[in-house]
């Protein structure tokens, strides 16, 4: 029994490890072909991060984790929310405007802004959900289109809402008042801080796990994702589930930009970080939509991002090389899970065959006789 469990654990770990190794090999190959030092590059990336770097990794991972969760909610229902990128930017912009206006005092203002962000993200994703449920429009295409629409819309609204800082080219929304910012958590020796939003991200992960695995709604959602026909047969309103799943995914996406907004930038500007939604897709795939797996995936991506920064200075290699690693991981992770699944199935078949076949194999001569 325990031997079987160990093997199951090993097999479970095999797929991500295999994916990582393959990604590292392919990246090394690219480095080799381009004539860059392979070993120096990896030893820089794999060197122990300093306290400040660890804090950066955790901060970056917080953001990526939320993005991964948002994508994963859709994945569990077989919905491909490529629009997390657009959803979090428009939501963060709305939150920045609300928080900057400071209609409510202190943390009430923060709470209001977070609620607004989730509502805006949900509404933006809801468009795709409605189009899918009522008109059968693929959510992949509609969310791609909505990403671009949100880019232009936010650029337009930002110009309307912005205050121009004197002597600066960038335009930003009003700064969030100090009483409404989310304080950082002292980290390590207390010299550096990590986003206070980390707590909220962890809570989101718990909520994700609880809702999907311990509620009737979560069961319906997973059932619909695994088999629409079975879901219909058991009385689930699939169209309603599609809209609700997109709304939840969008609401989660609304949170993605907030750690940066409340813990670092304090306003939304034309230079606000973009592209986090696409990393989220990769991370959700890497973590197999499991809240802990997504966390590990987010940490890995954040680690690669942070550790690649000094590459240019130390070994003269462009840090974009890790983008190749990250993209390749997305592919290798899917392939290696499939390979491991097939291998496991073959093991099972052998085990079953071994258990059932051997004791009572009828002698061939008898069969001929009767």
């Amino acid at each position: 029994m325990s031997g079987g469990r160990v093997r199951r654990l090993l097999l479970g770990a095999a797929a991500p490890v295999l994916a990582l190794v393959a990604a590292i090999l392919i990246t090394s190959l690219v480095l080799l072909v381009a004539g860059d030092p392979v070993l120096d590059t990896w030893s820089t990336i794999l060197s122990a991060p300093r306290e400040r770097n660890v804090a950066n990794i955790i901060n970056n991972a917080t953001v990526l984790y939320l993005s991964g969760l948002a994508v994963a909610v859709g994945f569990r229902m077989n919905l491909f929310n490529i629009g997390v990128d657009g959803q979090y930017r428009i939501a963060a912009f709305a939150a920045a405007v609300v928080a900057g206006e400071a209609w409510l005092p202190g943390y009430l203002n923060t709470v209001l802004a977070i609620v607004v962000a989730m509502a805006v993200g949900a509404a933006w994703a809801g468009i795709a959900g409605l189009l899918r449920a009522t008109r059968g429009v693929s959510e992949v295409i509609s969310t791609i289109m909505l990403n671009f629409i949100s880019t232009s819309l936010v650029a337009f609204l930002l110009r309307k809402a912005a205050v121009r800082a004197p002597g600066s080219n960038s335009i930003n929304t009003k700064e969030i008042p100090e009483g409404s910012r989310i304080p950082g958590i002292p980290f390590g020796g207390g010299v550096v801080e990590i986003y206070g939003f980390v707590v909220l991200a962890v809570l989101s992960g718990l909520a994700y796990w609880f809702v999907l695995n311990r509620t009737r709604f979560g069961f319906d959602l997973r059932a619909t994702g695994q088999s629409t026909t079975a879901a219909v047969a058991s009385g689930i309103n699939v169209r309603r589930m599609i809209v609700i799943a997109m709304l939840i995914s969008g609401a989660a996406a609304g949170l993605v930009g907030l750690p940066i907004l409340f813990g670092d930038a304090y306003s939304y500007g034309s230079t606000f970080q973009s592209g986090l939604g696409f990393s989220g897709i990769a991370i959700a795939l890497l973590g197999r939509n499991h809240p802990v797996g997504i966390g590990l995936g987010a940490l890995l991506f954040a680690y690669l991002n942070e550790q690649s920064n000094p590459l240019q200075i130390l070994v003269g290699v462009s840090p974009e090389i890790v983008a190749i690693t990250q993209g390749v991981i997305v592919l290798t992770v899917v392939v290696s899970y499939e390979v491991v699944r097939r291998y496991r199935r073959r093991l099972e078949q052998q085990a079953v065959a071994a258990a059932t076949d051997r004791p009572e194999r009828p002698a061939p001569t008898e069969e001929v006789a009767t």
Partner: protein
Amino acid sequence: MSAPAVARTPAPRVRRRSPYTYLAVVVGLLVAVSLLEVVTGADDLTSSGTISATLVATVPIALAALGGLWSERAGIVNIGLEGMMILGTYGAGFFGYHYGAWAGVLGAILLGMVGGLIHAVATVIFDVDHIVSGVAINIIALGATQYLASRTFVGLPGGGSTQSPTIPSLPSLTIAPVSDGLQGLEQRNVFVISEVAAVVRALTTNLSALTVIGLLLVLVTYLVLWKTTFGLRLRSCGESPVTAESLGVAVLRYKFVAVLISGAMAGLAGGFLAMVASSNYRDGQTGGRGYIGLAAMIFGNWRPGGMLAGSGLFGYTQTLGLRSGRDSVHALLLAVAVLALAVAVLQLRRRHVRAAIGFAVAGVVVGAVYFAIDEVADDFTRMTPYVITLLVLGLFSQRLRMPAADGESYRKGSAG
């Protein structure tokens, strides 16, 4: 990707349109735009400059859309078009600078095919979800070009980590007598005649060889996919791979080739951006045109003619936005309003009351916007292709028909 349920029902027979219908549409468009110019006074709508720029903006979109067409007709959804285009821009920059203009074109195609190869290996051989693979390719392509650019362009004259040195330009065609002769006619602003002159001038002045090649490829694609056995077999893989395999078609091989060609087209689209629309590779040059190409293909109902019309439409709006044509786009609003009202009347005559009301309301709203504002902000011009695509998908999804097995995984031997 989940196909809308309607895609399963047998499609209504497509009406055969004669070439004259297309000609009539083109002439009708010219008359309509001329009329619009007269009414609104937005003179830049059909200047030869606008038309040349539209051509330059249309071709890369059309090439990307062709890439989408090749791949999706074989049943492989390709949202990695953007990434393959990015690879193409780099290929044009690297090979164009080192080995000359035509080598740049080949380099763009080659690098696009590398992207196609990754997609083909992932989706056809390893059965990876098409969307997942596409997303991965977009991430890899962006990272790879940025990495390669700072590896290969830094230190070259005019080059850097975000741009290549200037690429030698491709030959371009100018028929001086026609071009100069029609200049006067165009500037005289004679109703419709001047517009025709402008179109002819745009086609005879500084017409890049790659523009011609790009437009020819649309024709070639149509001929190959719809008029040859190869094309029929390829499309059968996108409609019903099981049937195709039972008839002896090597489904996986066709899919693989289709995705490679798709990558080549997208790469060429990127090359066009670097060599014709600009004169070197720049970081972020594609600006989402791969996705616009995807949109144009959907707008065109997975058919070359419609796809070209979609690319033209998106290229035109993009051009008007770029030529600081805030009043041009504003003028287009009036056209949209009139068009919507016309469709409303048409729907009413067909007794589709709800659709008629919808179009009438939309027409009135757009008309009201036209009279309420003086110019359209660039941001809204930029989002036009995407909004149009969403509207087309939302309003006409019943009439769109994607290849029946598009996006579905297929393993060899499924025919049983």
